[in-house]
């Protein structure tokens, strides 16, 4: 007997979105009031979903399987995180005059993400990914009527995304062609065979590598990062707040499922690939950010570097590494959501760095809190960003991968320069004009930012230690129980 309770979080946005589609309909007045009420409805629904997710969370620490779906601790925790952030996003957009479709699209994107985090087969995962991606392409383009660059950005995102999806499907077809199965469990069982013929290993590694390409695109990693700066610059702050947070969490959780599941036996090779990608992203994200004059392009490069940390953690197939990646990406998502929410107080459109000059005079709160977000991204103690970076370093150093750690250290120093530059413009410089920075009015962005700032500042006392322990446990449960022996701790730097 299948239980519907664990499925309910995924079902609810679907039901809600469909209902909205039919009852509110396409011809409806695109007024602020309609949007507001829809967003409010969605918010209520999400609160119910979060309750359900919390309940299934309590019940499902032992996995509960549906065809192609699995509901375990990880999926429940991810559902909770995603729905919570989605609720925050709806709060954030309540005051905006958005078309009705925006709410529908983000709900469908949420549905896609919820399927991604619970997917137990490549096909289900791909469906979730596509549902999320297509909704997001349109979501970015929605603003295009007033703002042509948004169309360009959406198109870029769409074309590159379609290419990445195509490569991913190709990879899946390799895997299916080799083994004839798509379920994670089946694949793992077939791949753990110690006497794998070399051709099978080759096709499997190739297929898995191509599947990873789709992830690298979603997580905006070098060399699949090109869309990120354009989208970040062209889309409104509110859209970027969404793009920078939820999809990253969903993609990371799905990636953890794959790397700790079916791809685990291939990890020696895939791990090297991921480390190379991580190092490139860390370096390029830091170096290319140096010359940016647009604040949001700068943040896009910062994202690339940050995601480099996530992939660096994922490249070590241990509970420590996977757990570090999960906590890292959640903290990053909260930071990003809070940062862009706060930025909306200044402007929903793109800003050059100089537009921020003297912000501290107009609104000290905004300036200092933005500084907290930036310092946390930069990994300064005692903000949350430091502890997540620390856990990544620990996990990677425990497996003696030194090169990528040095790339990360170098990247941190270089990236620190541009984070400091933003802080300098906001806090040290005088305003470019007499009236200073003009502040917009977004009632909801301030309370959201308060929550995010508090989260970053007290992370080391309250949720941090627990989250880290728990994420390691979740990741440890996923990893194959008969794990091949991890290299014993030998003194690093010793010559073999």
């Amino acid at each position, binding site marked *: 007997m299948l239980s519907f309770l664990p499925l309910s979080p995924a079902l609810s946005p679907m039901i809600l979105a469909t209902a909205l589609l039919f009852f509110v309909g396409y011809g409806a007045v695109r007024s602020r009031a309609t949007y507001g009420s829809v967003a409010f409805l969605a918010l209520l629904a999400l609160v119910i979903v979060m309750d359900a997710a919390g309940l299934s969370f309590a019940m499902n620490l032992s996995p509960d399987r549906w065809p192609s779906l699995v509901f375990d601790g990880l999926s429940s925790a991810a559902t909770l995180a995603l729905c919570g952030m989605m609720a925050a996003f709806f709060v954030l957009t309540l005051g905006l005059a958005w078309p009705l479709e925006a709410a529908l699209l983000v709900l469908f994107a949420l549905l896609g993400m919820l399927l991604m985090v619970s997917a137990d087969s490549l096909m289900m995962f791909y469906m979730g990914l596509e549902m999320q991606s297509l909704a997001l392409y349109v979501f970015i383009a929605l603003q295009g009527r007033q703002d042509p660059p948004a169309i360009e950005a959406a198109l870029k995102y769409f074309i590159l995304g379609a290419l990445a999806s195509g490569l991913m499907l190709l990879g899946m077809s390799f895997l299916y062609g080799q083994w004839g199965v798509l379920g994670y469990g089946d694949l793992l069982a077939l791949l753990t065979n110690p006497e794998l013929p070399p051709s099978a290993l080759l096709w499997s590694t190739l297929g898995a590598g191509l599947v990873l390409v789709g992830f690298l695109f979603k997580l905006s990693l070098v060399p699949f990062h090109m869309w990120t700066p354009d989208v970040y610059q062209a889309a409104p702050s509110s859209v970027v707040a969404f793009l920078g947070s939820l999809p990253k969490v969903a993609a990371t959780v799905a990636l953890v499922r794959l790397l700790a599941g079916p791809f685990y036996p291939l990890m020696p090779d895939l791990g090297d690939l991921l480390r190379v990608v991580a190092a490139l992203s860390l370096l390029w994200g830091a170096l290319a950010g140096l010359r940016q004059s647009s604040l949001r392009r700068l943040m896009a490069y910062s994202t690339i570097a940050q995601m480099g940390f996530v992939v660096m953690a994922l490249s070590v197939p241990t509970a420590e590494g996977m757990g570090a990646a999960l906590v890292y990406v959640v903290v990053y998502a909260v930071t990003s959501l809070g940062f862009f929410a706060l930025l909306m107080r200044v402007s929903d459109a793109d800003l050059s760095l100089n537009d921020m000059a003297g912000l501290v005079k107009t609104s000290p709160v905004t300036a200092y809190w933005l500084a907290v977000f930036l310092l946390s991204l930069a990994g*300064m103690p005692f903000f949350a960003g430091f502890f997540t970076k620390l856990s990544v370093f620990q996990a990677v150093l425990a497996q003696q991968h030194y090169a990528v750690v040095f790339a990360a250290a170098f990247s941190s120093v270089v990236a620190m320069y541009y984070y400091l530059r933003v802080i300098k413009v906001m806090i040290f410089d005088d305003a470019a004009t007499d009236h200073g920075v003009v502040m917009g009015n977004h009632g909801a962005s301030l309370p959201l930012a308060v929550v995010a700032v508090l989260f970053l500042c007290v992370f080391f006392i309250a949720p941090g230690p627990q989250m880290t322990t728990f994420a390691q446990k979740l990741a440890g449960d996923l990893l194959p129980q008969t794990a091949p022996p991890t290299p014993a701790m030998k003194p690093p*730097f010793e010559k073999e």
Partner: protein
Amino acid sequence: MGILSMMTYLPLLGVLGIVLSGSDSRARLDENVKVLALFVSLIVLALAVYVGLHFDVSGDNAANFQFIEQVTWFPSLGLTYHMGVDGIALCFVLLSALLVPLCILASWNSIKHRVREYMAAFLILETFMIGMFCALDLVLFYIFFEGVLIPMFLIIGIWGGYRRIYATFKLFLYTFLGSILMLVGLIVLYKTTGSSSIPDLMKGAPALLSPSLQGWLWWGFFAAFAVKIPMVPFHTWLPDAHVEAPTAGSVILAGVLLKMGGYGFLRFSLPMLPQATLEYAHVVYALSLVAVIYTSLIAFVQTDIKKVVAYSSVAHMGYVTAGLFALTVPAAQGAIFQMLSHGLVSAALFLCIGVLYDRLKTRDMDQFGGVTQVMPRFAVVFMLFILAGVGLPGTSGFVGEFLVLIGTYIVQPWVALALGTGLVLGAVYSLWLYRRVMQGPMTRDAVKALSDLSRREQVIFAPLIILVLWMGIFPTPVLSVLEPAVKQVLSPYASNPSLAAPDLSAPHHALDAPQPISPQINDHNEEKGPQ
């Protein structure tokens, strides 16, 4: 919550008070904030003195860390919240707690805009400084070590001089580069030994680390501490930061932040990595000698008064690093004593420069001359600290330099000899500075209109004068607090045959025994009476 944590986090409570404070009049609000900040920092000082008085100096516990607090924290990352002080840390905690109220007093009238933020930044700085000297967990240490940068970045960047942006970025990025390499080193240290407790690692780490790993770690730590202390050639951030920082910022920078580097060497490099330390000590010697001689020469050609003192700081830190890596008890004691003394003396010198700058808004030597005639009280104070910086017997500067020279002479006579030339050079540029600024004919009208020290300024200088003289005339209490801790730090070297020290376990015999030193210096030795 233990007393160390109370001392560490009390300033944060003060920051909360500052953030929440409000008043209808701006001037009254600023006044209230200043009083609150001063009050909080004085309580911290009182707590530090309490810790000092209850510290077990002579009992069985003397060499151990005391006032221990240990709580589990981040179990999955292997972190514990672990605080405690030994004799070395205690001295630095006292120094930090003393300088912060003086800084707040010194900024009373000179900081006119964003007073609330200024006071908040200083209190946050105090939290990080005291926390760093008390931290006994690797990562906790790193957190405080690194956290100091944030308030310092703001202090120089907001209230600094004309090139403040350049200076503050340089300070931040230099230090950050060094400390992130240290972080990698700390994690490798933790992952290899399985312990993140500094006291345990001080005892157990040398046995667990292979020589090659020790070498790598040593350079990782060196990157952080050599930049912080700073050693030539990593010192270039310091003159810029000093020149651009507001007076109180320079005081903290010279008084405490530089000492973090020396403290780091004492906590990590010396006790945990003995083989690497012996292997690379000559590098430190060489860099220290270059620092002492080269920066003394550079100081001599500066026209900005602050730059002279900034370069002299680098030179003094050259003594410290040479003393630390001589690996003998008197030299290490001397190096620590020198750090403490320099903390007081350079802080006082920067305050003196602040006094002049507040009045004339310039630090160019040529704009002064003959100040003695209009500011006699100030002239005496300035003279005293200039001489203390030179190392005049009877001031604290002498004791430190003398012990360093003795301790270094035991193992490396040539190094001691070269260090001695630095003493002469120091006297040259210091006295030259004093002559050009304070003496000579009084030609400028601006100088004629100068007023002598105000009551507030006298209050600031009084404790510094007393301490500098006390530490110079009767250093025994400080040395006896330091001695057990220093012996503990140097215990891995006690039986090392490569150190030609006659008897390292009895340093004062080394002092009392006839040494190839001129009898005149021995007289001073008796005068200050180390035992």
